[in-house]
């Protein structure tokens, strides 16, 4: 207990310097936590996807559609329970910066396949009955202040023209990582309009979503589906939803990598700052260490004193930083909700933060300790300031 008291007293002998160092560590821990959370947000789609659902797309690439009649064929494959399908609509509300994901889907099978989208029963009924109806996420509704029965107009970038929808239902996410900022509407609506405007492009879907009867069958079902359409005009590629989402993340992998590297750079920056503080502290106290040595305290004691002081500072900074991370995340998730619909702090981040704080504390103390131990008593006593 006494040693702890000594460490604290020592740490706060120069209040200004320790205060500044603490602030620095707090900022670093905060930045590190936020960056890790940002990377987590990037992978949120992967985390939220299920390994028991399959996605079938055109094998050439995702921009090529699949014929609508594949649905019945897929349904016949052994082990397939539900088949649903959708098309990326790519509509824009007003300006391009108001981006949100919007899909045309087959509503009944879709809601069956995705139980994590929770709709009140009466709203669900209203949505199913109205071909112009749409379901929107809670966050999206809050962002644009859309209520039930509002009319929303999207401008198509892939499917030209202005498209009117009626908000019939607002869904809530069942899990914490469910994306609550998406927009779904009836695939039939899209298809019927296409029949009038672009007759050559009808009865096409972007991808199929498939639920299997037992999770362990997923692999076999995927192979069976792809074999079914081999050598057809539109060959398919079926993978688990997780792999499908991972593919998207992997495409922007270089940026995730850059953020990851940068999140470690901040640790180095702050390591330099703390090491600086410790270097100055020990330089000032060289005389004291010499006295301690004279009294018979060994190198081990001095090492413990310097390392302990360094750790006291970094761990306090860690606590402050973590305390600041929570409100900061809240602010950011409000500001950047458009790009990152799911923005949660993971337990692993806090743990990594702690490791980082310990590392900073240790590394920063190494050189100063080495200097303090090596100095000879006579030299230490002779030195001033």
């Amino acid at each position, binding site marked *: 207990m006494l040693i702890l008291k000594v460490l604290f007293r020592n740490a706060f002998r120069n209040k*200004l310097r320790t205060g500044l160092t603490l602030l620095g560590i707090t900022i670093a821990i905060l930045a590190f936590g936020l*960056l890790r959370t940002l990377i987590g947000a990037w992978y949120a789609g992967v985390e939220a996807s299920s390994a028991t659902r399959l996605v079938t797309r055109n094998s050439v690439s995702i*921009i090529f559609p699949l014929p609508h009649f594949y649905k019945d064929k897929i349904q016949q494959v052994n082990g397939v329970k539900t088949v649903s399908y959708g098309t990326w609509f790519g509509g824009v509300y007003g300006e391009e910066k108001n981006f949100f994901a919007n899909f045309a889907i087959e509503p009944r099978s879709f809601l069956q396949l995705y139980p994590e989208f929770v709709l009140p029963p009466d709203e669900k009924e209203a949505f199913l009955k109205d071909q112009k109806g749409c379901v929107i996420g809670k966050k999206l509704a809050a962002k644009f202040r859309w209520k039930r029965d509002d009319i929303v107009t999207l401008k198509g970038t892939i499917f*030209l023209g202005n498209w009117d929808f009626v908000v019939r239902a607002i869904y809530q996410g069942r899990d914490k990582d469910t994306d609550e900022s998406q927009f779904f509407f009836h695939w039939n609506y899209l298809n019927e309009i296409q029949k009038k405007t672009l007759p*050559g492009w009808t009865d096409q879907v972007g991808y199929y979503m498939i639920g299997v009867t037992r999770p362990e069958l997923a692999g076999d079902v995927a192979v069976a589906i792809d074999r079914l359409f081999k050598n057809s005009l539109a060959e398919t590629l079926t993978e688990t939803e997780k792999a499908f989402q991972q593919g998207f993340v992997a495409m922007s992998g270089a940026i995730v990598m*850059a953020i990851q590297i*940068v999140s470690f*750079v901040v640790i180095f920056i702050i390591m330099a700052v703390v090491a600086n503080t410790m270097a*100055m502290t020990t330089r000032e106290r060289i005389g004291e260490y010499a006295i301690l040595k004279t009294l018979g305290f060994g190198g081990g004691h001095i090492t413990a004193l310097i390392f302990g002081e360094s750790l006291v500072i970094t761990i306090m900074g860690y606590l402050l930083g973590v305390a600041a991370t929570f409100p900061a995340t809240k602010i950011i998730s409000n500001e950047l909700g458009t790009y990152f619909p799911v923005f949660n702090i993971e337990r692993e981040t806090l743990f990594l933060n702690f490791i980082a704080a310990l590392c900073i504390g240790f590394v920063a103390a190494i050189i100063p300790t080495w200097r303090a131990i090596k100095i000879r008593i006579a030299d230490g006593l002779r030195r001033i300031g």
Partner: protein
Amino acid sequence: MAIPLAYNFRNLWTRRLTTLLTVSGMALVVFVFASILMLAEGLQKTLIETGSFNNVVFLRKGSNSEVVSGVTRGQASILQTFPEIAMGPRGQKLLSKEIVVLVALNKKGSDKPSNVVLRGMDENSLFLRPQIRLVEGRLPRMGSTEIIVGTNIARRFKDIGIDEKLCCGMRDWRIVGIFDAGNTGFSSEIWGDEDQFMQTFRRSVYSSVIFKLRDSSEFENVKSRIEGDPRLTLEVKRENKYYADQSEIMAKFLRILGISLTIIFSLGAIIGAMITMYSAVANRIAEIGTLRALGFKRRDILIAFLLESLLLGFLGGVLGLFFASFMQLITISTMNFQTFSELAFSFSLNSQIIYMGMAFALIMGFVGGVLPAIRASRMIIVDALRAV
């Protein structure tokens, strides 16, 4: 008389470890700052250099990239009658009708699929893009299933090389050449005969029509003609503008990310500088008193300490930029959100980034040093001299 600069240098040298740590903290901040700006700059430079000012691109109205655009054969024929089109060496009109589709290919190393642009070209496409140079093999014969690939594709994707076969759309495409388009987006594309692609991918419309203006100033004429003709539900842009627009969101994202990161980091580095300068002042109270007693003014002391702190910032800036300049050797390849396809680009340093990085470093030094310097200059001579 001002305090000589040598005083500052010597002082920094005496406290080598502290100086080194402070400078390296600042250098890291400048490094991150410069690198991210270089990344955004590289992306934009690549896409801007892809297009040329004298070429014009026609896309379907409302579509912002070639991937989702469509120009019918009828519309293309109308465009062909425009008088503003430049003539080629054989007397032909320099207009090309192109088709763009995305195919998923597997990357080397990670084996992860990524979307690559497949561009169907006709005999005029290469006249419109003089930056394209064949580095290996030969050009594809029109009317055959032969293709050429960009250098960045050849380098980064699996099983791409001369005489390799690429399989998509139930056909085998033979790679007969590798082309280099310098630092442009075309280096990340695959080119082949447009008619073959249209048939294979069952497209009945072109993705875009591109022609070269015979006189650069006639762009407005073309634009007003397009807008006045109800048959042409098209949009026209200069080619360089079209590609510049594609880099906008991504470059903005990178810049915002970069600037917000560095602001947070710079707080850390400023604190580092402040700690150093405060202790520099605290350790030299007697010295400051002596200087004052010798007749140096308060202002001189203030300037001396500020200079010392700016010197720290300057060293940090030079070091950071020095290491950042090596980043130019690195090429990264990622998906452009706007076109949904792979694009390779390198970090690119320009004088503006150097100025900004240097200014940033000096600001960090200044902010870190100003409070300690004021404290130093406010000291009372007698008290300062009495201090041990």
